[in-house]
């Protein structure tokens, strides 16, 4: 029998927790923001790692949207409810407050209209969780300032001509946009180069030392 002919429902006991693949650090932080047994839409869910984790550990009802066919196949083949779709075009179909959380992890900078996507997130989710690479990070600034070249870093690994990231922003840019869209920040996490949460006493500092940021957002009443 080929490996793909197995049938989990009939398999022996579930593998024990230690065998579960480890969740990426930033996804783990996102999952900490999610209440148990809530409804989550993960936009740009890739292979479904976060959704699977939330379903298993937090009894979350999860849905996903993913652009790549390979990603969607992987998700559906592991029993997740995921559609092939596009953050720019497919969010308009969902009703208001359809989910407790709308998650957009490391995808905002790759969409055509980040402001519209953000607006949709705040509409269809009671809360939105957004993470993105910070273009204000000091190494990014240094490379641009000293070498006059587009930055290539751990979280921005591609050359300018082949990067999918077409709308990069700084933490400050993002917060200004949230303000304009009437969205408030409930919680923010600033991550350093090693993916650890770092304490920054001011926005100025956060925008300098944060390589990535994760925000828990909600629309203002």
């Amino acid at each position: 029998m080929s490996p793909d002919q197995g049938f989990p429902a009939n398999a022996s006991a579930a593998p024990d927790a230690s065998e579960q693949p480890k969740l990426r650090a930033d996804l783990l932080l996102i999952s900490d923001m999610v209440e148990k047994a809530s409804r989550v839409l993960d936009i740009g869910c890739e292979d479904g790692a976060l959704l699977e984790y939330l379903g298993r550990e937090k009894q979350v009802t999860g849905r996903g949207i993913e652009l790549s066919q390979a990603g969607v196949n992987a998700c559906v083949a592991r029993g997740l409810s995921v559609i092939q779709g596009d953050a720019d075009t497919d969010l308009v179909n969902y009703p208001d407050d359809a989910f407790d959380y709308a998650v957009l992890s490391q995808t905002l900078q790759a969409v055509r209209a980040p402001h519209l996507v953000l607006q949709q997130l705040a509409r269809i989710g009671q809360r939105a969780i957004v993470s993105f690479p910070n273009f204000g990070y000091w190494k990014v600034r240094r490379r641009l300032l000293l070498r006059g070249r587009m930055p290539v870093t751990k979280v921005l690994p591609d050359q300018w001509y082949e990067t999918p990231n077409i709308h990069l922003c700084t933490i400050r840019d993002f917060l200004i946009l949230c303000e304009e869209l009437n969205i408030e920040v409930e919680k923010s996490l600033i991550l350093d180069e090693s993916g650890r949460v770092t304490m920054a006493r001011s926005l100025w500092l956060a925008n300098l030392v944060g390589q990535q940021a994760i925000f828990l957002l909600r629309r203002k009443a």
Partner: protein
Amino acid sequence: MTKGEISPALEAENHDLPGHRVELGHDEPLQLDCGVELGPFTVAYQTYGALNADRSNAILVCHALTGDQFMTGEHPVTGKPGWWQQLVGPGLVLDTDRFFLICSNVVGGCLGTTGPKSINPETGQPWGLDFPVITIGDMVRAQRQLIDHLKIDKLFCVIGGSMGGMQVLEWASSYPERVYAAVPLATAARHTAQNIAFHEVGRQAIMADPDWHGGKYHEFGKTPRAGLSVARMTAHITYLSEPALHRKFGRRLQDRKKLTYGFDADFQVESYLRHQGYSFVERFDANSYLYITRAMDYFDLASEHDGVLANAFKDTPVRFCIISFTSDWLFPTSENRDVVHALNAVAADVSFVEIESDAGHDAFLLDEPDFRNTLRGFLNGCAERLGVFVE
């Protein structure tokens, strides 16, 4: 066989065919959308695998326009393998070791279920064009009576491609409490103008055949072979794709070295299509072809719900898995995606994948690895959540 003679396979009485047969509609006649009551009526069906003790592992398979209940194994009329033999069987995606599969011939069909070829009890003659026009909804209501008869409260899954997918959507919309999971494949919530147009060409070809005799060819001992063949040839092109035809035939010549400067089948593709047409006549009834294509044309799920497709699925508890294929131009991804968007609008539980394939519409009949894995994953996920096992 010469033009106009009756096909031996179709001459055989329906009760000569193997499989189950049940007469329904004694207590509850079928209320057809056209306003007519049909009953009692016969449904011919096949089952594969075994129903478990709590009757929770049943999958209803809805066949497409020219499909039938013989999904796998040797077909009793053609002697060829069933239409879904690549997916149905022990250890396959639709695993007969775990699931109880049911497939019934649709109302209006010609392989045992009541249709225009059946005898009209009032005249003692085949119904012909006196048979009432049926719809996808009518087909599904007949299937529901069959599922009642089998004492199955809730189907684990309803699955089907093309017209079968239309039935799946109708099931989920009409009987959401009786379906756990729905898998519409390569389908649409309405038949497009282009698809209606192709069907009309097929119907006109049949009706233009003098052997059709206004639908009364049985009485004249004839079959509109030429007309039904042409209908099939046209339709068959729409099931494939240009790359698939090119790969299979290119411009290669049929058993000859050069062009004949005549109208014989010089090209392999012509010879192939002619064969498709001729062999179709052996297994399909021309009037059934008229009725079933009409049922597809009339299908427009949104129109039954104030023009809003999402309303067809309001608060649906059904889990959906919609699959389309890149080279399918008959039921393109955009049509499938419209259903996805409608389901999103009611925040339904839906998965959707577009599978890369050059096989055209017929891709849903084939065992493509991405298709197989997606479907298997979805069914496994559902089975796990429900805890469906076969003892």
